[in-house]
């Protein structure tokens, strides 16, 4: 399931929706990304996420299908927020469930690596020195490429 939303999410309730009543789940893997208060040695006051409505949902739906193709998953949940966030705020939740822990953990890792470089979001950080678009990192490309090679 894909949710692209401005509002915050309740981690406990979201994860419970993946496991409650499904007794075939042996493992749940989860990653939550949060806004940090420091970037490049500067104090961050806010981070605004811009996205491409329509394409975002399309891309996330494609990658959910790809994860289900690669691993024997019971369920996939991706929640990605947009709009203005502050340090400590949740940005993204990725969770997968499977009979087996390897599938849950690896698919979760795959999905967040993928989101970093291929989901149409852009981050504008605000600090004392002004506004700054977060640059893509080569290390994120490398992390995503790893999964292409493993295909």
């Amino acid at each position, binding site marked *: 399931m894909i949710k692209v939303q401005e509002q915050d999410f309740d981690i406990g309730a979201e994860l419970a929706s993946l496991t409650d009543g499904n007794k075939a789940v042996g493992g749940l893997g989860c990653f939550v990304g949060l806004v940090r208060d420091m970037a490049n040695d500067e104090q961050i006051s806010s981070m605004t996420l811009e*996205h*491409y409505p329509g394409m975002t949902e399309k891309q996330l739906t494609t990658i959910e299908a790809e994860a289900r193709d690669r691993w024997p998953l019971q369920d996939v949940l991706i929640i990605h927020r947009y709009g203005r966030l502050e340090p400590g705020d949740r940005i993204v939740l990725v969770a997968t469930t499977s009979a087996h822990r390897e599938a849950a953990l690896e698919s979760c890792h795959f999905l967040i690596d993928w*989101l970093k470089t*291929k*989901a149409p979001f*852009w981050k504008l950080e605000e600090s004392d020195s002004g506004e700054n*678009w977060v*640059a*893509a990192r080569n290390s994120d490309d490398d992390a995503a490429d790893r999964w292409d090679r493993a295909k």
Partner: protein
Amino acid sequence: MQLLYFGWVRTKIGTSRETLDPPAEITDVRGLVEWLKQRGDGYQEALQDLETIRVAVNQDMADLDAAVTPGDEVALFPPMTGG
């Protein structure tokens, strides 16, 4: 043609969305970008380094050689930083 801009491409061009009618000889993304660069300093600055520009045609990632037609939705943006 619907043009969408995101991230610093948007802030440099100064708009997030516009409807344009490129001349008929514009048939691919590369040609479209070169044509846009003639429209003003903001476009010139936003699109000067093609290495840093990513493109989606009708909400699918595309490269500079991808075809574009008048009814398309074409988005230009910097490398994505999701997650």
